[in-house]
């Protein structure tokens, strides 16, 4: 039997993730050393690749943007007591919605009308795609974890089918749609900052980052400032207490998954509207699953998710640079590092937390434990 665990809030939110990250990096350094590379060299290359140049930073932020969307999606569902593994599929469908809107409307509509329509179409598609498992969970008792996993497969199959059979221009061998008209292009950060007179290197980073930051604020306001979010969290924490309060748990399940799906559906704005300018096959690329790790590490809070997304963005970008710069260091090593971070900051948090609590208790003047 262990002493009830209680960390002060600051330690829980800042210190613990930092310690987890440090442990993951230390273990990764060990592995790097084992394969005969120098850990400091790799580390420097990674940090420099991710943050050292404006271009690197742009890539980092570009990756982070997608993770923010999928991380928020997982977090909202989680607060409603649901484990939404379907971020990947919802992002695929969202991108499809964004892409379809652009394909059919971009030739005739100006950008100021086109871009909001694409955003709304993406959110709507993601939302609808998440609503089916939500309905099955709420009214038929099919577990949302199972159904959302299945829906990931269905979503990617639908995208392949549509691209192969309908959206691909005749005679085009590549699995992609026709290019959208320019009005469907979300301005890149280089372009946007140029309007403000700031010089910025060319990169995939686009205004979706602003959208992602707004989504963070919106999710915070929804969950902790609105009555709807209060009810959603009540159901997520205690369905029986929510029933006592007169809250319909089935409705909350639908709401949580719909909001979650809409957030995941915004990925298309970054990847389709912001970068590719056409509907392509692998635009989500596992970000829906990375979102689970991001939410886990970010403690399902928008601020935490922001930082976790930045970290994972940096790993993607820095990792690519390391694989490029350091001879003999393959991309697989970067995947390993990501795996270690997920392992230590997600799964092993509660192994590390007592050690942190124990360490704090040794410090004078810090009352680490409150007896429950």
């Amino acid at each position, binding site marked *: 039997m262990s*002493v009830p665990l209680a960390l002060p809030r600051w330690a829980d939110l800042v210190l613990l993730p930092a310690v987890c990250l440090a442990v993951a990096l230390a273990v990764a350094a060990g592995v790097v050393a084992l394969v005969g590379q120098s850990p400091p060299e790799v580390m420097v290359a990674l940090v420099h690749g991710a943050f050292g140049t404006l271009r690197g930073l742009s890539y980092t932020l570009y990756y982070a943007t997608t993770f923010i969307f999928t991380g928020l999606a997982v977090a909202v569902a989680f607060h409603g007591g649901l484990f939404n593994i379907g971020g990947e599929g919802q992002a695929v469908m969202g991108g499809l919605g964004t892409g379809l809107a652009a394909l059919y409307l971009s030739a005739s509509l100006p950008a100021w009308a086109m871009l909001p329509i694409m955003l709304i179409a993406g959110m709507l598609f993601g939302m609808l795609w998440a609503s089916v498992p939500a309905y099955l969970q709420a009214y038929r008792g099919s577990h949302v974890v199972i159904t959302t996993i299945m829906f990931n497969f269905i979503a990617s199959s639908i995208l392949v089918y549509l691209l192969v059979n309908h959206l691909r221009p005749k005679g085009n061998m590549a699995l992609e749609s026709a290019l959208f008209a320019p009005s469907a292009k979300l301005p890149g950060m280089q372009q946007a900052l140029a309007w403000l007179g700031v010089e910025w290197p060319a990169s995939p980073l686009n205004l979706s980052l602003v959208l992602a930051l707004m989504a963070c604020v919106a999710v915070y306001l929804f969950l902790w400032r609105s009555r709807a979010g209060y009810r959603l969290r009540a159901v997520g924490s205690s369905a*029986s*207490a929510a029933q006592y309060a007169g809250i319909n748990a089935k409705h909350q399940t639908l709401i949580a998954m719909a909001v979650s799906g809409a957030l995941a559906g915004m990925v298309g704005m970054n990847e389709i509207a912001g970068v590719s300018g056409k509907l392509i096959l692998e635009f989500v690329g596992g970000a829906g699953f990375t979102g689970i790790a991001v939410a886990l590490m970010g403690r399902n809070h928008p601020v935490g998710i922001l930082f976790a997304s930045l970290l994972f963005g940096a790993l993607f970008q820095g990792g690519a640079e390391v694989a490029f710069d350091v001879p003999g260091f393959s991309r697989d090593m970067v995947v390993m590092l990501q795996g270690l971070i997920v392992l230590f900051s997600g799964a092993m948090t509660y192994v590390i937390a007592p050690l942190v609590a124990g360490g704090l208790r040794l410090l004078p003047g810090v009352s680490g434990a409150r007896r429950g």
Partner: protein
Amino acid sequence: MKEAAPLAVQMRGIHKRFGAVKANVDVSLSVRAGTVHGLVGENGAGKSTLMSVLYGFYQADSGAIAVNGQEVDIRNADDAIALGIGMVHQHFMLVETLSALENVMLGAEPHWLLRRATAQLRGKLEALMQSTGLQVQLDALVADLAVGDRQRLEILKALYRGARVLILDEPTAVLTPQETLQLFEVLKGLRQQGTTIILITHKLKEVMALCDFVTVMRAGQVVQELPIAAATMESLAEAMVGRKVQMGRLDGDVHQAGEVLLSAQELELRDALQVLRLSNVSLELRAGEIVGIAGVSGNGQSELLDVLSGLLAPSKGELTICGQVFTPAHWLDPQTARKLGLAHVPEDRHARALVMDFCAWESAVLGYESLPSFSRGPWMRIDAMHQATVDMMERFDVRPRDTALLSSKFSGGNQQKLVLARELGQTPKVLLVGQPTRGVDIGAIEFIYSQLRAMRDAGCAVLLVSSELDEILALSDRVIVMNQGRIAGELDIADCTEAGLGLLMTGASQ
């Protein structure tokens, strides 16, 4: 009284702190062999910490323990078991998917071959059951055993491992009155055979009925240790709380009831398996009266509360609340109930009344979050909610006064005070209260009683469901007894005797 009996357990000068909290301060405890020793105190008084030190869960910061006169060092539960100390926890430590026999064997297999082990064990256990009177079906799955059986199994397990000192933590909290009596017979038998028993409890009646000695703890310290002959319920209660407490019925507490505010006609409820849970239940609640629902737990009281509060729709019957009529097809829902002025303090604080992961202020508006004073459009008025919580905490003396503290971090009594503050705060016309003082300290019980009486005096119709007969007798103006989902009888408080109600509760008079 065995004055000359040697000391089975002696703890001297035990200190234990958790961070800034001093859980045990210079605590000394002497338990004589072959006696039942009561350890009483309010929640957080340090009883459980002290016993955890004895059982090896915690190490004392300083102090000495002697078992049977030998100084010992108990570093973990294995050490304690080796010294013949056994503990039965409030929450049973049993594997539900294993049989009773397998549970006893778990971790103490007498042979590496399972078949030999079970054969040996069965023989020993049957002898043990014979000599102690602790009868358990050895081959039944624990999941299928009643709560009382599980407790007997826990005791059997401790005895099988050679316990000569048995620590029981709130053993009667989960038992019906009948099971409690059975348990006491068993414990008396064990005492006769020389087993030493330490009984942690806050029910003073049980202490008086069973114990030879009693130690009272308050705020981490021992305030009294005396033979039971020298103790009275009143003196023990006073020692526990640190002041005089009024628990019984107030003198001259007779009330004139007013108009009928809630009327239920011929309620019938069947559960998912079509088992009849409520049958032909009709009752009326009038303004300015407290109606007590007495009965052994599980005889339909919980279902009745759920039906009347709108959490469950009955299969038949009719309900009228403040003039509004509800039928099973269009039953009351909790939100409508609140709007009609019906407040509900549920039996289960943890599952129903509070969201344990919510801050105090979030739990303090549960069910009332849509009130105009708490909302602005779709947004919550968090300042107003905080302020309301501060007021509630002030009025009902909820400690600590920290609106941002998680609901789960409050003690049972303070959680209950917060729930009462919330439900009484909107001046309801009808109040449904389930087990208002379950797991609540004596000091808080007195306060809760006074609040319920105040509601009644203000013209509220109060329905009180409690499995504590004393509570029913102390508060009610009228008592309805339930048995097997039916109303077994209805009595005015003047006609109530404990014996008479007991007969109705067991269904004997039918």
